[in-house]
């Protein structure tokens, strides 16, 4: 991205390099685009959604559905956590009740996004579909980026990790975004994810990717026959100014990243610590989001796992937060042995506790398997927990292999089966599966996107999350923290607070930095020369979010889609210690209030 002037008196002065690849006829064009609005300047999904809006897409797996791989304004800059890549498309999972796909994005860190920008490309738009498996090679050169499609037949049938290690041998100074087997079997698995390589992975040889997991963006890559993307560029030499050093120090040691840092660094030890916090209110999902009277969640709290394994905090490129909590075998000397898996709250919970599994070794195996096949752990886990729940409720006519809560071997078999593209029942996601069984009440999804690890009865904001419940509407922890249940409160937090969570799905920095608005504007000014006010950023983020809601409605999402799983309104779980407040009447009124704000603003924005 380049800036001609250092203020935004003319947004058109800001340009970005967009590469458009027509996979159907193998044409590649690079355009210097002039930004039309601040959403395009900041980038991420805010820019990509404007491109998606121009496409009329009836089915996610169709040639007119583009896949946009884009970056944010700060991706690849020296601000700590400025590493994000965004994969944006109409999703095979997010789908309206009328059957049309919803626009979606999924973000990943690692080093791929930075390398891509260092090639000179800010955004790639894949159109059409290749008839044969291909890799895209984007290479930095003195004459601008060199971009080629190359055959990928030799990479088929390998895990995402194996693909990356193979690519590393051929493209030494590169980073990679690849799919696993699940993405290759896009027609049988709709929640294939995209693996982005990390420095740690390339140095250690361990399976330590960062994932763009949500919404099946890996399955879209698979449909288009894109097996991987190679970003081939030298690392630039960087000297940090005093102000930038201070900003990075603040990110690394300040309150925003505290949750994700190690305890010895003044942190809480990662998102995993939610186990301790949420257990106090018995709201850690267990047995398909229904914690029992005597929960076992704490058996997988970090302090328990550390009795048998070594947990090492590792990091993305130049990030001192070290949020990766990697699990290793513990040697007899108490040192770390073989790498097993990475534990974050969502993958751990949805692939263990919520499946009735409370053994840490079994948990490492399921989390590692999900990564091995390249699947979104949230979608895979929540669809599996539905199957187990269904089998418990229908013992005379069970699904698949009759797995029940806690049946580790049977659950593992199902996970392998869906990863290998042999189990469409699971691979289609919980919305379609539950509809096919006429058992939708306890299918834990909203708009086809499986729920993250926060009980639906604690978060009506899920309805307005445009790209996954805990990444695009920051209301999931509020009931526990604040205990408020009145309509005015929830209307306010959804309309005026929660939606701003998507800011860092635009800017290129990681949500785990939790950088405040004033420092963000300072970083943008220092690193790009663009002076934007905090208010301008807030307005831009709001516009991008509202465009997301507008796109949902354009794709046919209506009142029937904006619902929570019905059972939580019908049957209160008395084991849960947060206030019970959601009823059909309550949600009806809340929807009326929230949409009265959003619809009015959308009318002006998208006229």
């Amino acid at each position, binding site marked *: 991205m380049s800036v001609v002037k250092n203020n935004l008196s003319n947004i058109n002065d800001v340009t970005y390099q967009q590469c458009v690849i027509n996979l159907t006829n193998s044409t590649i064009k690079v355009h210097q685009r002039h930004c039309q609005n601040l959403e395009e300047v900041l980038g991420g999904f805010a820019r990509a959604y404007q491109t998606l809006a121009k496409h009329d897409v009836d089915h996610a797996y169709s040639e007119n559905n583009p896949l946009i791989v884009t970056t944010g304004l700060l991706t690849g800059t020296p601000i700590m956590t400025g590493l994000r890549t965004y994969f944006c498309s109409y999703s095979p999972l997010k789908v309206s009740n009328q059957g049309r796909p919803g626009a979606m994005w999924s973000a990943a860190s690692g080093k791929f996004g930075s390398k891509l920008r260092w090639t000179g490309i800010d955004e790639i738009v894949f159109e059409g579909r290749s008839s044969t498996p291909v890799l895209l090679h984007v290479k930095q050169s003195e004459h601008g980026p060199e971009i080629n499609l190359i055959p990928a037949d030799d990479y088929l049938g390998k895990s995402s990790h194996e693909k990356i290690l193979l690519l590393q041998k051929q493209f030494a100074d590169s980073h990679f975004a690849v799919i696993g087997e699940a993405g290759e079997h896009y027609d049988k698995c709709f929640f294939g994810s995209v693996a982005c390589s990390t420095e740690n992975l390339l140095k250690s040889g361990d399976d330590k990717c960062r994932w763009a997991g949500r919404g099946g963006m890996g399955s879209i890559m698979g449909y288009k026959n894109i097996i991987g993307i190679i970003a081939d560029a030298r690392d630039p030499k960087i000297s940090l100014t005093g102000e930038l050093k201070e900003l990075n120090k603040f990110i690394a040691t300040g*309150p925003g990243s505290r949750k994700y840092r190690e*305890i010895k*660094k003044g942190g809480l030890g990662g998102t995993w610590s939610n186990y301790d916090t949420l257990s106090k209110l018995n709201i850690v999902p267990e047995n398909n989001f229904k914690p029992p009277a005597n929960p076992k969640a704490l058996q997988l709290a970090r302090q328990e796992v550390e009795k048998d394994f070594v947990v090492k905090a590792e990091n993305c490129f130049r990030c001192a937060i070290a949020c990766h909590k990697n699990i290793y075998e513990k040697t007899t000397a108490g040192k770390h042995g073989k790498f097993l898996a990475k534990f974050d709250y969502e993958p751990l919970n949805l692939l263990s506790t919520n499946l009735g599994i409370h053994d840490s070794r079994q948990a490492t195996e399921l989390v590692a398997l999900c990564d091995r096949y390249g699947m979104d752990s949230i979608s895979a886990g929540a669809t599996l927990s539905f199957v187990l729940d269904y089998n418990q409720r229908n013992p005379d006519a069970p699904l698949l292999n009759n797995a029940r809560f806690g049946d580790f071997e049977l659950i593992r078999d199902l996970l392998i089966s869906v990863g290998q593209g042999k189990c469409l029942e699971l691979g289609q996601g919980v919305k379609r599966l539950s509809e096919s069984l006429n058992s939708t009440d306890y299918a834990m999804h909203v708009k086809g996107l499986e729920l993250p690890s926060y009980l639906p009865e604690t978060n009506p904001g899920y309805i307005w999350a445009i790209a996954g419940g805990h990444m695009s509407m920051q209301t*999931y*922890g509020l009931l526990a923290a604040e205990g408020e249940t009145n309509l005015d409160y929830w209307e306010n*937090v959804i309309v005026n607070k929660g939606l701003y969570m998507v800011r860092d799905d635009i800017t290129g920095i990681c949500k785990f930095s*939790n950088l405040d608005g004033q420092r963000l504007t300072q970083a943008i000014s220092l690193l790009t020369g663009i002076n934007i006010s905090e208010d301008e950023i807030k307005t831009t983020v709001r516009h991008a979010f509202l465009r997301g809601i507008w796109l949902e409605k354009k794709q046919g999402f209506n009142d029937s889609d904006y619902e929570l799983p019905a059972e939580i309104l019908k049957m209160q779980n008395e084991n849960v210690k947060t206030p019970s407040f959601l009823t059909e009447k309550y949600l009806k009124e809340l929807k009326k209030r929230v949409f009265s704000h959003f619809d009015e603003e959308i009318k002006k924005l998208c006229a």
Partner: protein
Amino acid sequence: MTSDELPLEIQLKGKQIYDCISEISKQSPEIHNMLWKDGHVNPQILMFHNNTLIRESDFNNSVRTGDVLDIIPAIEGG
């Protein structure tokens, strides 16, 4: 607390942590309501004094000029 509000930085005066907490409560009823549940510190909210996690029993600890008190929600996704 949601992302548009964090981190909010304010200067406080006091001799003990408790004085600072009381001062915050006076300045913001919203924060007060969030911090206290049933007469005790809300377990879903965590406080750090100069990078050390503190509990209610630490509120009598002294503070000095330049000390940092962080109040953060305990729940974060990932």
